[in-house]
């Protein structure tokens, strides 16, 4: 049976894809550092401190996370992966989106015209329910359906 959660659409859109779940904060710089340096179409996570994501390809996935952490270059990193086509399809935040991730997705949307669908405030239950590999559907109104 499908589970449904409702959050706040930060950058609204309809999309469907494969979930990639991290229960710890996504360190944007540490995770995308290799993909950015190698200018790769893949985005293999290079953050050794994140056991949920390390060495997994994040490109085109729907990343389910509490929030992003790390350096204030985080927004710039998200812009860069958008420009090289290795961005996630969507970011689903259990908590309120943080200022660094918000900057990255907003600047990409406005300056590159490349949208990563973003829904935040889905709640801790959402991260408990969703599992890596499951299909997730997102609606413009911020409804997220798992399975």
């Amino acid at each position, binding site marked *: 049976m499908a589970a449904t959660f409702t959050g*706040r*659409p*930060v*950058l*609204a859109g309809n999309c469907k894809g494969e979930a990639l779940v991290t229960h710890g*904060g996504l360190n944007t*710089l*540490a995770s995308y*550092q290799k993909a*950015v*340096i190698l*200018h790769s179409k893949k985005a293999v996570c290079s953050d*050794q401190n994140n056991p949920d994501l390390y060495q997994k390809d994040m490109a085109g996935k729907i990343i389910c996370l509490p929030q992003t*952490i*790390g*350096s*204030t*270059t*985080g*927004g*710039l990193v998200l*812009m*860069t992966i*958008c*420009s*090289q086509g290795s961005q996630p399809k969507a970011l689903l935040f259990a908590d*309120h*989106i*943080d*200022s*660094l991730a*918000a*900057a*990255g997705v*907003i*600047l*990409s*949307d*406005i*300056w*590159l015209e490349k949208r990563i669908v973003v829904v935040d405030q889905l709640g801790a239950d959402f991260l408990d329910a969703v599992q890596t590999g499951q299909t997730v559907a997102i609606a413009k109104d911020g409804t997220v359906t798992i399975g």
Partner: protein
Amino acid sequence: MPSTHMTLTSEEQSILDGKQGDVLAKAMKSIVVYGETFGATRLVDISGSQHLVTSFGANTIKPYFAMMDELIEAGLRTQEPFTVDPRPMEYAAVDVNPIQKLVNKLVFGKQADYEQQLQKLGLKNQNGFTCACYLDEVGNTPKKGTMLAWSESSAVVYANSVLGARTNRNSAGIDILCAILGKAPCFGFLTDEGRKAAWKIEVKTSRQPNAQLLGSAIGLKVMEAVPYITGLDRFLGSELTPVVESFLKDMGAATASNGAVGLYHVEGLTPEAKELGEQLLVNDYQSYVIDDAELARVYDSYPVLWKNQEAAPKRIFIGCPHLSRQQLQGWIDRITASLKERGLTRAKMQVVLSTAPDVADLFREDAALQTRLAGMNVSITTICPLMYMNNPLCAKEPIATNSNKLRTYSTARFYLDDDIVELMCSGQSNQGGK
């Protein structure tokens, strides 16, 4: 789009409507949407000079360079001159081998072009490259209550906590747009409510804790929340002397990198804590006691990322964030005395002391000191040690540091100050390092 909407002044609205050009409209739209995401209902005027995090011309950050070009081509500049983080390399002070130099060119090949972009947009001067822009010698030192939109986590936390200025933890990109518009969305640390503390930290150590270790413990516990720290004034006193400011600089950088702290209050010491005391605490605050055992636990939790844990360190980096003038003089004196005590003339590996260009100039003017430091295998530089470690070949080297920020973002191994002095004198890597 988020559901809240800002009330803009007529001028702000006209910029958003494109009356002053498409590029400025995009800049305004960016900061309005950014602010609305966090519930801001208005913009405030930035009343001080900006500080930017992006100081490196990495070949891969093309969309950022393209945005900067759009701003320049539209004839835009920041309202006030700005400072920016340290340059990535300085071969005269931190030598690398030819292959590492080649990789540096591949990674940071756009450095010269990017520095030209920065100049066109309002860079303060050629010495404006430091993460510690607030040092007296540099002069980007905002006063209490000044509204800002800084990036660089260590500068943000210092400006908010020690100076009492007001800035959110902004990302690269948003920082320059706010600087050009002279506006910042009013939310978070720009508001009184956003500066309240959700954690009370009780420091109960038997002696003054190491600033980098204490900051790490606090950051790892509270993450992005504001801590109100008690018990530290027992060791630091109640005045912001240069020694105390340097301690708070290093502690804050560790809170910001090991967690995501953008503001802390120290009871009886930092400006808002002196004024408001425990009124800064929210009603349902959480508590965290830090004693000697807790610091030892945190220290023991750090992984060692060197491939060969017994390797002889290639280099020691001290100064992330950049050393203050007082700290730089203190390290020179301490290294000199420690080598002399042991009958040594030279450190076993290069010791790199990183500081702001305006501070480095004061020491570099002294030719005799330069000769003496070179003889001791000690170098003064102005680079960002973290960017040195961003070179994949340099990252493979066994590098030692007393910086918890550098430890967090690289493979550098963390040593407490006493241990790092022992290391430079003995050459042995297993002297307490983590």
